[in-house]
C-alpha cells in the first residue's frame, strides 16, 4: 500500500470571527498528483500556508512524511519544494544564480548543489538563458525559472500554487509536462489552479474546497459522477415542432431540453444509450439533422455545480 505523504486532520484556522478552515481533513498518498480546487477565498492558500507552517492554526494536526509538521521541522522542509503563485526570484541575480540561491537554502555542499542546479536548468529547458537576468526573460521563461528554483533540491513533495497564471499555451504545456515528469521521477505533487482543464489533464485525485471545507474528493471520474449532468447531446436541426421537443423531454434520463430553432441541446443524467434514443425520435418522424455531438461533463461543470455560479471576490 502506498505511503501517506500528507495527512491533515480536522484543521481549523480562524481569523478573528471568520473561519478560514473548518475542520478540514485531507490525505495525499505517495506518487499522487493531487489537485486542490476551490473558488477565491475558499481556503486553498491558507491550507498550503498551514501545511508549510507559514501560518499557525487553531486546531487540528498536520503530518508530512509521517512526522508532525512544525515551523522548526527542517528535516521535513528539506524534502518539500514550493512553487508560489507569484514569481519569487531576485532581479539582481542571473538565472543560474537564482536557482543556486534557492537550492543553497537546502543543500550546503557546493558540488552537490552545482549538479542539482545543472539538472534543474536542464529540466526546465533554460540552458540558453543561464546568464540572463529575470527582467530579460519572457513570462513563460520566468515561470520556468520559478519552477526550477522550487525543484532544484530534488524534493519528494512539491507544492505548486497556480504555476501557470499568465502563461502562453506552449509554455503552459511545457510546464504541465514537466510536472508529470517530476511525478514520474517519484515526487508527490500538490497542485492548485483555476484552470480546470489543467487539473483534469494531470491530476490523479482532486479535492474541491469551499468556505474552508472540503466539499468533494475523488478522481475526476468519481467527481463527474457526483453531479446531475452526465452527458450533453447537441443536434443541429432546423424548424422542429414543439411535439418533437416534448417527446425528447419524455425520454429516459433526460432532465432538460433546450431548443433555439437551430440547436437542440439535451441534458441527460445517467443512462448509456441517450444519443441513440434521441436520434430514433428524429428518424421516426423522418426529420433531417446536421452535425451531432455528445459531450461528457467537464471538471469545470463539476466545479460550478458543486461550488455554485455566484461570483467570488478575487482576494484569496
Amino acid at each position, binding site marked *: 500500500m502506498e505511503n501517506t505523504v500528507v495527512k491533515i486532520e480536522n484543521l481549523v484556522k480562524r481569523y478573528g*470571527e*471568520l473561519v478560514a478552515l473548518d475542520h478540514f481533513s485531507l490525505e495525499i498518498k505517495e506518487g499522487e498528483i493531487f489537485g486542490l480546487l476551490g473558488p477565491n477565498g475558499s481556503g486553498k492558500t491558507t491550507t498550503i500556508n498551514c501545511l508549510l507552517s507559514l501560518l499557525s492554526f487553531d486546531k487540528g494536526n498536520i503530518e508530512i512524511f509521517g512526522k508532525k509538521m512544525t515551523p522548526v521541522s*527542517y528535516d521535513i*522542509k528539506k524534502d518539500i519544494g*514550493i512553487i508560489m503563485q507569484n514569481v519569487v526570484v531576485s532581479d539582481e541575480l542571473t538565472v543560474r544564480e537564482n536557482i543556486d540561491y*534557492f537550492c543553497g537554502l*537546502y543543500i550546503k555542499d557546493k558540488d552537490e548543489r552545482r549538479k542539482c542546479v545543472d539538472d534543474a536548468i536542464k529540466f526546465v529547458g533554460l540552458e540558453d538563458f543561464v546568464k540572463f537576468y529575470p527582467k530579460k526573460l519572457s513570462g513563460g521563461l520566468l515561470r520556468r525559472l520559478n519552477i526550477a528554483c522550487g525543484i532544484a533540491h530534488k524534493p519528494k513533495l512539491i507544492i505548486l500554487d497556480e504555476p501557470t497564471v499568465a502563461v502562453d499555451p506552449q509554455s503552459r504545456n511545457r510546464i504541465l509536462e514537466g510536472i508529470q515528469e517530476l511525478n514520474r521521477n517519484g515526487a508527490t505533487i500538490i497542485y492548485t489552479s483555476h484552470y480546470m482543464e489543467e487539473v483534469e489533464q494531470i491530476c490523479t485525485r482532486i479535492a474541491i474546497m469551499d468556505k474552508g471545507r472540503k466539499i468533494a474528493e475523488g478522481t475526476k471520474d468519481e467527481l463527474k459522477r457526483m453531479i446531475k449532468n452526465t452527458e450533453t447531446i447537441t443536434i443541429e436541426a432546423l424548424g422542429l415542432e414543439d411535439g418533437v421537443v416534448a417527446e425528447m423531454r419524455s425520454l429516459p434520463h433526460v432532465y432538460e431540453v433546450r431548443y433555439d430553432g437551430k440547436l437542440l441541446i439535451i441534458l441527460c443524467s445517467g443512462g448509456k444509450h441517450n444519443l441513440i434514443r434521441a436520434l430514433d425520435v428524429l428518424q421516426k418522424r423522418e426529420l433531417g439533422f446536421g452535425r451531432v455531438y455528445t459531450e461528457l461533463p467537464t471538471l469545470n461543470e463539476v466545479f460550478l455545480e458543486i461550488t455554485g455560479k455566484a461570483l467570488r*471576490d478575487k*482576494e484569496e
Partner: protein
Amino acid sequence: MQVFKLFMKVLKKNIFTSMIYIIVFIAISIPMAKSASTEKTFKDTSLKIVVFDEDGTDASRALAGFIGKKHKLKTLENDKDTIMQALYFQSVDYVLTINEGYGEKLLSDDTSALFSTYHMHDSYATVMVSQLLDTYVSAVRAYSAGGAELTDACEMASDAVLQQAEVTIARSKGSENFSESTAAHFRYLSYILVSVIINALCPVLLKLNKKEFRFRTNCSCIKPTSYTVQLFTGSAVFIGALWLALMVVSVVQNGGMFSGIAWYAVLNTFIYTIICTAISLLICSFDPSDNVVNLLTQIIGLGSSFLCGVFIPQSMLGSGVLAAAKFLPAYWYVKVVEMLSGAEVFDGSKLAVYLLIEAGFAAALLMMSLVVNRIRYTSAAIKLPTLRKEAQQ
C-alpha cells in the same frame, strides 16, 4: 551564508548611485576643505588706491604718504573713462582726488569737499577707505585744535591711525590637531554618510525583506533567525567598510594620521554612521517604493545638512532654525565638529554630552523602527480577516 552572499550581490547592483555620491564628495569636499581658511594670525587688508593730488601742499602730500603706508598706491591717467575701466576690471579699488584747497580748509577747520572719489558702489573697499579718511581728517583736526602745526598734526595723525594692535586668532587648546579644513571635511561627511547609507542600504533590505521573498525563504531549511543574522552581518560589513573607506579619505585629506582630539571626530563619525543605519532601518519598516527612498534620501540628506550647519556654519543660522535643528542628530554631529575645530571652547564633558545625545538618537530611531515593524505586522494580521469577510459577503 546564502543570504549574506545574496545581500552582497544585491548591494553590488545598487551601489552604483551611491558610488557617485562618494566620488562627487571626494572631488568637491577635498578641494573645498583645502580652500577653507587656514590662517592662524590676523593680517590687515591692503587695497589698490590711486591718489590725484590737486592741492600740492605739504598736508596733501602727507595724506598721500599716509595712504601709501597702509595701502598700495597705483598710478593711473586722470581720465574718467580710464578710471571707470580700471574700477570695473578691479585693477584699482578706490580713486581719490585731493581737491585744491585741502590744506587751507583743514587749517580753517572746514571739512566740506576735501576729496572727490571714484569707487564701486557699496563695496567693502569704499567703506574701508572712507572710514580711514574720516579717521585721519578727524585726527589732524584734533591735533591742530590742540595747537600743533599742520605738518606735525598730519604726522601725528598718521602715526596714531596707523598704530596696530597685534591680533591672534584664538583657538582652543588641542584644536591645533584639527585644522579648519579637516573640520570642513568632517562636516560634509555627515551629508555623504546619510545619503549613501540610505541610498544603498534601503533598496537591499527592502528587496530581501519583501513579503513573498521572506515567505519563500521561510519554506526552506534556513532558520528565520539565521536569515536575520545574515542580513545584519551584511549590513554591518557594508556600513563598516563604508565608514573605513571614508576614514581613509579623511586621513588623506588630513595629510596624515589623526592625532589628539581629532580621534573624537572619528568617534563622532562612527556614532553618526549608526544613526544613518537606524534611519535606513526606520525607512525600510514603512516598506516604501524605490522612488520614495530616493526622495527621502534627498530630503533627509539635504534638509538636515542645511538646517544643522553642514553647508552653512551654525553661527550664521537663525536662532529659530537652530532651535528646530536641535531635534535632528546632524545638529549634534556638527556641534562636536565645531567644538573640535575651536569654534566652541573645548570641554570634554560637553563633548561627551553631545556624543551621548547622538547615541540616544541612534537608540531612539532603532526602537522606532522596531515599533513600526510590530504595528505593521499586527495591522496586517487584522486586515487579512477583514478582507476575507468582505470576500465572503
